[in-house]
């Protein structure tokens, strides 16, 4: 079965081929394009399954690695390679599965869109890039696909390019990612310079023995820039909520499996570096934890169904990153996986709602959907429950592992923070559900359940959201942690006490939401009015976007204007000034030619006089 591993390079390549075929040739037939795209990712999914089976059958610690020469010169070697180990295998499955389902769903969601062919080609390249990133065996390659993922998100977020907001969101996403990539690239350069290789296994062999551990500090901080951008951690989180401007399936893809997962995955991949530097680990945990709380806070007050989900993603990403930081890498990845399933489920279900409501996204304008769209509603509820961490759904197990990791790692503060976030999560999710699905019907428009091509993926994802968590639960003897591990990763058996507390907190959140939004014990409106300034602050996302916009306007754009002024007035001014000087000295000299022949004669004689003077001086100098 080694064979299957050696053709695992096909997993990322197939979607790329689909992209190429659609882009160059098939785009004239949108349906064919869609078919090709779905088939490609479907085959990739099957291959991933086979690969995963093979990997897991070999047992933990087995790494399959092949490289081909890509960019090589003495002193620099970037290969294109594949590295398949349990971590990669899990990610492959998650990515291909979610991508496949999203694409299938898109067949229904995007039906009739004039840009269908492009849409599927972007989907393909997005999936391909992500898979390439997952399967990469060195930092050079991961950077290549890392950037490509960024580009794809740009294309997909801006898919409805006719909308200025979509355009701006796409640009924002790309640029924000670029800022992270800037640091990431520097980190990679450091690695290349100091260790002379970018290959994971070679680095892993060298780094623990490196004689000067101090250099690892800047390297790992710089490397962490990448995840901060890509996984939308504070302060580079601003692009993610705006990324809602893309079609909803795209949001599902970005938020669940591709884009944002890349950052977490990178931390896991480079865990052998990060784990060498405790300070950075602390930093990672702190950033993750802060993001989790920060985003959850914002999610409490949002009205847009997708935005709520977006902030929840931010918050959950914070969770994962925090997990990495506290050393619970396994838990982080586990949460990544479960989150991928239920978050894509939530987005797709939300998409189904939006689709049915002709683009309406405000939860206050929804309501009473549970009767009209039962499948959507109940899958959404399953997803929300999973997200809220209600046992025995997937989210419960993964979240608990993270909390356990924090607690056991001695990060009591982070543990408390995580628990608080769990409570908030449950609250805002059920605020959404009670309002949008169970509240009074807002409009009288006819609403129909989505077609099977859309509900099918919802059901599958709902199923996965229910069962995926079992892989990491004591029920399966923590099979997940058995395979997904790394040196320095502590794994802690789940503690019943923590499980209980977190479950209770989640339930409390749901209960509170029920009280406020279903029973209307207190009117949300009153709360809002009473805490108007706080509400305003949170609702406006703590004015971070405005701060950045202000910075851009005041620092960047004004700097650009200032430098342009310098260029036009000073640099060009010097050039033009020299030209002018030359020209005017010409004009000045011109007027020495007066037309008076005697003046000419005077010049001649003046020349003679000067020459005579020179001759006399020379003669005197020769004599003395």
């Amino acid at each position, binding site marked *: 079965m080694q064979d299957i591993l050696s053709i695992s390079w096909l997993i990322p390549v197939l979607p790329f081929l689909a992209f190429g075929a659609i882009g160059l040739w098939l785009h004239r037939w949108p349906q064919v394009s869609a078919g090709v795209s779905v088939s490609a990712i479907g085959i990739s999914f099957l291959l991933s399954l086979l690969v995963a089976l093979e990997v897991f059958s070999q047992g933990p610690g087995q790494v399959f690695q092949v490289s081909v020469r890509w960019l090589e010169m003495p002193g620099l070697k970037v290969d294109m390679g594949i590295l398949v180990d349990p971590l990669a295998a899990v990610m492959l499955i998650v990515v291909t599965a979610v991508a496949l389902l999203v694409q299938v769903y898109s067949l229904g969601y995007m039906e009739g869109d004039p840009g269908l062919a492009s849409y599927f080609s972007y989907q393909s390249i997005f999936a391909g890039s992500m898979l390439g990133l997952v399967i990469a065996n060195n930092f050079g390659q991961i950077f290549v696909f890392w950037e490509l993922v960024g580009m794809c998100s740009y294309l997909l977020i801006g898919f409805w390019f006719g909308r200025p907001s979509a355009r701006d969101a796409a640009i924002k996403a790309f640029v924000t990612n670029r800022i992270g990539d800037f640091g990431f690239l520097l980190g990679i350069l450091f690695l290349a310079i100091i260790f002379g290789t970018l290959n994971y296994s070679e680095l892993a062999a060298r780094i623990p023995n490196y004689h000067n551990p101090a250099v690892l500090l800047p390297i790992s901080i710089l490397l962490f820039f990448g995840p901060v951008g890509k996984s939308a951690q504070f302060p580079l989180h601003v692009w993610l909520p705006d990324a809602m401007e893309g079609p909803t399936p795209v949001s599902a893809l970005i938020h669940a499996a591709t884009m944002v997962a890349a950052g977490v995955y990178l931390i896991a991949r480079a865990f052998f570096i990060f784990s060498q530097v405790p300070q950075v680990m602390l930093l990672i945990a702190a950033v993750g934890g802060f993001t989790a709380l920060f985003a959850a806070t914002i999610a409490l007050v949002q009205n847009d169904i997708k935005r709520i989900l977006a902030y929840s993603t931010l918050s959950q990403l914070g969770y994962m990153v925090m997990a990495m930081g506290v050393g619970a890498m396994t838990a982080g990845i586990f949460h990544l996986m479960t989150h991928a399933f239920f978050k894509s489920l939530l987005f797709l279900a939300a998409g189904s709602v939006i689709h049915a409501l002709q683009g309406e996204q405000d939860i206050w304008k929804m309501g009473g959907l549970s009767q009209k769209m039962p499948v959507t509603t109940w899958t959404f509820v399953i997803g929300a429950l999973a997200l809220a961490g209600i046992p025995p759904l997937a989210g419960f197990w993964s979240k608990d592992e993270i909390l356990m990791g924090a607690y056991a790692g001695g990060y009591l503060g982070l543990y408390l923070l995580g628990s608080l976030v769990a409570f908030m999560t449950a609250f805002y999710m059920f605020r959404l559900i009670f309002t949008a699905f169970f509240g009074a019907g807002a409009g009288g428009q006819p609403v129909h359940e989505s077609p099977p091509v859309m509900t099918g993926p919802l059901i599958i994802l709902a199923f996965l959201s229910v069962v995926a968590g079992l892989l990491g639960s004591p029920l399966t003897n923590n099979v997940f942690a058995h395979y997904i591990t790394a040196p320095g990763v502590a794994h802690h058996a789940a503690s019943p006490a923590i499980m209980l507390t977190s479950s209770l907190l989640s339930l409390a959140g749901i209960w509170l939401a029920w009280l406020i939004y279903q029973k209307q014990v207190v009117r949300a409106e009153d709360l809002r009015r009473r805490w108007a300034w706080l509400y305003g602050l949170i609702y406006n996302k703590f004015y971070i976007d405005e701060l950045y916009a202000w910075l851009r306007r005041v620092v960047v754009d004004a700097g650009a204007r200032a430098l342009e002024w310098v260029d036009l007035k000073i640099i060009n001014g010097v050039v033009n000034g020299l030209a002018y000087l*030359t*020209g005017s*000295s*010409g*004009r000045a*000299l*011109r007027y*020495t*030619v007066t*037309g008076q*022949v005697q*003046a*000419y*004669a005077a*010049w*001649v*004689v*003046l*020349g*003679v006089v000067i*020459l*005579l003077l*020179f*001759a*006399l001086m*020379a*003669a*005197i100098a*020769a*004599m003395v």
Partner: protein
Amino acid sequence: MSYELLAPEIAVAALGLLVLAIGLLLPAHSRKAVGYLAVLGLAAVLVLVIANFNREAVFFAGVYQVDKYTNFFRILFLSAALLIFMMSSRYNHLFGERQGEWFSFMLFATLGMMIMVAAGDLITVYVGLELMTISFYVLSAYLFDDRLSAEAGLKYLIIGALSSAVLLFGMSLVYASSATTVFTEISGALGSGPEQPALLAGIVMLIAGLGFKISAVPFHMWTPDIYQGAPTPVTAYLSVASKAAAFSVLVRLFLSAFPGLSFDWHLVLAVLAALTIVIGNLTALPQTNVKRMLAYSSIAQAGYILVGLVAANSYGLKGLLFYALLYVFSNVGAFAVVTAVEVEEGDAELESFSGLSRRAPMLAAVLTICMLSLAGIPPLAGFAGKFYLFAGAIQAGYLWLAFIGLLMSMISVYYYLNVAKAMYIGASRREERLLVPTSVSTALWICLLGTVFLGVYPGPLSGLTELAIAIFSIG
């Protein structure tokens, strides 16, 4: 002594007299024919010189020297005259019935130059120079009803006579210091050691006197006026040939009469060259009359050529000769176009060239290419010439001069391109095509091909210059 080597001078003199006589004899309306005679005669003399290029002889104890150096310049003068005769075929109508005399004066000027280059003695140099100069006084004023032409003639005469006097005074001091006027004997008589003040004064006055002819700054002020006022073919000849003649004398003078001078005449000439290049180019910038612009440009060109003498080494002198010859092609080519336009439009203002590329693409192309060659843009001849000149200068340690020279030559592109701009994008006053007679277009083609060929493949000419400067003992 093989006196047949003097045949070119004799032939040109005879041709001049013949043309003069025939011009007077022929009826007024058919005097154009003397042009053909002059062209054919000159061509024959040119062939004669080329055929005897390698034959050398020293006449009259060094007073008159026919060597490869002489022959090189003879070829230069003769071909310049030939090209100008060809390109002026339509312009000559302006001279009316005095065409015959015009040709003969041009031939006498040529004779004067040929005597100058061959002369190995101050007296002969002086007489040759005056023969040339006085011919030019008359030629400059040859457009009799033209106020500018007469003014040009008078100005040229006054300032020319003044500089002749300066030159003569210098010669007298040199003569006083060495008791001889023959170059080869001067170098023997001076010996070594520090020079007497009178000798140095004499030398600088020689520089000043000849500097007038090459229009080196500050002896250059006459140039634009005379070039603008004189009939265009005369201007062309004045700019290429009389300048080359003066250079040929300067080189022979400094390298065979004053070879061992401890006085740093290189520095003097270097300063003059730098001034000439800078002022010539700068003053050309604001000009709006193409003829006058070319006059200033020719001042600058003289500066470049002078660099070769400053260096006074193999590359420098080769460059000097090379440049002097390519200058014939490039400058005559440029003036040929100016002549053609002037005949058509009546003046040489920049507006008259506007839109020329549509009316006469050939003329526009030739003028552009010739001017670019003057600016030293490869692959045209001017570049190769400048390369030699400045290689010489740098070899002799005059890096600063090379800097100034090359920098200014790039600045000069500005005013050349202004003309090109007018020709290529300007709107022309008239639309009909500008017809060019065969003789003129032949001259244009020769200039064009010469300019391009010498730039692309400078090898043969540089070989020739190497032979020509072999008579001087230089490093």
